[in-house]
């Protein structure tokens, strides 16, 4: 049987490096926000009772925030990656 990717992927090595770097930075940011959430729950669960806004306590507010932040960061990541992919694609087209 043949091996290798299902569809041949043709991406410039610098493009891959750039996207990886952006991904790692965003991942680190989200990991920090998530870790703080887990730590507050673990160390001081009572602190999650504190009213924050709109009638929501910290527990519900932070939980919803983590979910909405995930979507926003995903969109930001896609926007950055799409922009750089277009740039590389244009440079490739110009080179031809």
């Amino acid at each position, binding site marked *: 049987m043949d091996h290798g*990717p299902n569809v041949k992927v043709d*991406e410039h090595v610098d493009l891959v490096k750039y996207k990886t770097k952006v991904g790692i930075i965003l991942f680190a940011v989200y*990991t920090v926000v998530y870790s703080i959430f887990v730590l507050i729950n*673990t160390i001081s669960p009572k602190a*999650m009772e504190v009213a924050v806004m709109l*009638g929501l306590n910290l527990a519900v507010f932070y939980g919803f925030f983590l979910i909405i932040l995930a979507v926003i960061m995903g969109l930001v*990541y896609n926007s950055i990656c*799409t922009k750089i992919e277009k740039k590389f694609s244009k440079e490739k087209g110009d080179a031809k």
Partner: protein
Amino acid sequence: MIYEANPIAVVIFISFVAFVLGLSFYFGKKGSSAKSYFAAGGEIHWGVNGVAFAGDYLSAASFLGICGMIAVAGYDGFLYSIGYLAGWMVAMFVVAEPMKRLGKYTFADALDAKFNSKGIQLMAGISTLIVSIFYLIPQMVGAGVLVTPLLGLPHYAGVIIVGVVVTIIVSTAGMKSTTYVQFLKGALLLIFSTILVIIVLINGFKTKPSDDFHQYITLTPSIENGAVVGVEEAEYSFVKQIEVGSTSFIKIMNEKGPRWWELREDNGSYSLVETLTIESTPEVDLFNGLPKEAGAFYSVGSASRLFKNGVEVQATGALGIFGFFKVINDSEIIRYKKVQFSDSDNSVMLWHQVITPGNEVLRPGLKFPLDKEKGATPADKLNFISLMLALFFGTAALPHILIRYYTVSTPSAARKSTIVAIAGIGLFYILTMYMGFGAMFNGVMDVQDGNMAAPLLAKHFGVVLFAIISAIAFATILGTVSGLIVASSGAVAHDLVDKFMGKQMTDKVKVLVGKGAAIVVGIIAIALGILFEGMNVAYLVGWAFAVAASANLPSILMLLFWKRTTSVGIIASITTGIITSMGIILLSSSMFAKYGLDPASAPFPIDNPAIFSIPLSFLALIIGSLLTQKKKSVA
């Protein structure tokens, strides 16, 4: 509880399942190559793939398990939602595009792309099988839970129905039909969950959720020297008193038979509060003192006191999306605590009321003991961190999720489909809060099994909605089980038989081997689904995440980001991850209870292994790689 099949529900349910099967056969006829069977030809649109991701991921654990856990233990159930969703960030930012660049049919392809190692092929294949089977257990348990109220069938019948239907789907058509089943069910799940939440908000909460809701009554005991000697209400007579921990339970008789009541003391004033009991005598099980068919075993879930805008009310009226939480926070909820004890030759399972302030159900601590003042130990806190770690790192290591990256054509499509998935899954997880708390307040809970909270909440608002929600929940299980069985069959046919054993197979034979493997895995899943009846499905999925995060993720991450990774390191990591995570689970207190042993005698004080098994797996990879720097292609 006693459930009877409703004809409308049965018709809607059967029509839905028939439609899903028809879809499978249709796509089954369209492609028979290995590429089509294992990866849907790599031609699925990223938008469809994203919704299918959501359909694949929002399994029984999410719809049944999380909603059920929120309904029973409040905010602690939502912690699963947060962990499951956060795990997608690892998938999106770190794993999605590289997996697409490196792989072909299975995640073992990606791991092995650099080394072509028999050892990696073997271990990655085994790991896929183990994780998939761990993940299959809760899905099958969920299937059994669903058919009981829907079709009036026993638990095992539901497990067998799902097992057979899914095996037919997978063995006829593979990844393409699985993708469209998941797309359909993912979209419907989001639409109808939103409708259910809107109905919950419009209806608000009432202290008496429905006209036929059983209001639990209170009696007055006669007390002498702190012990009950009689009951003041003439139709009842005192039988005996039993102490369980710090709570007293009183057996009293009336014309219907014997019942157990909880003795309460409040500022020197005593009362007897009705409980729910299942008393197993040598001849028969009695539900609240009567045979099951008498229907005396009631549903529960209501507020003892409701407050809106600081005023105590009997009904809140319609609530807004934020006001919903304010009302919960200010009110008091009747929850139920389970105890077990023996009475002569009878064993008694009893649920008694625990009045819980709303602010406590809206913060962590009712399921996971985290509050020092309430007796939480360091081991409890470690257990919680370990669970959150497993959920965070598990998603990106689940084989049935990883294979979905091969169904799209490019890395950017893989990325975009992940974002669509996160948006859909995130929306659903926000809805779980409204569905779970909706069930907690609307008198629909079955104390024997919290998993049915969301479908029973739908039943509260009408049988048609119940049938549709149940059919979607059933399709949810079908979709996820299909994905898991495709991943398992790929591991057997592609990783083990083709690559590891080196059997030269034509495309047709490879697909046949995959289908054979699908049938065998389906049978194993049915057996395990029956065996694990009664356990919360979200809890069981937590274990699957822990095994995946321990066995697979260290290898994936280190292969991508550490140039000195060798094949021996990867093999050592997968092996260590599987052994340590499974070892801790099998020796945990939860499993000891399942074996019928004393949970306190379990060698591991925690149930969630990730905090130990993930670092050990990384360590094994690093040591294995450093020791074999010049032997990269030996294994």
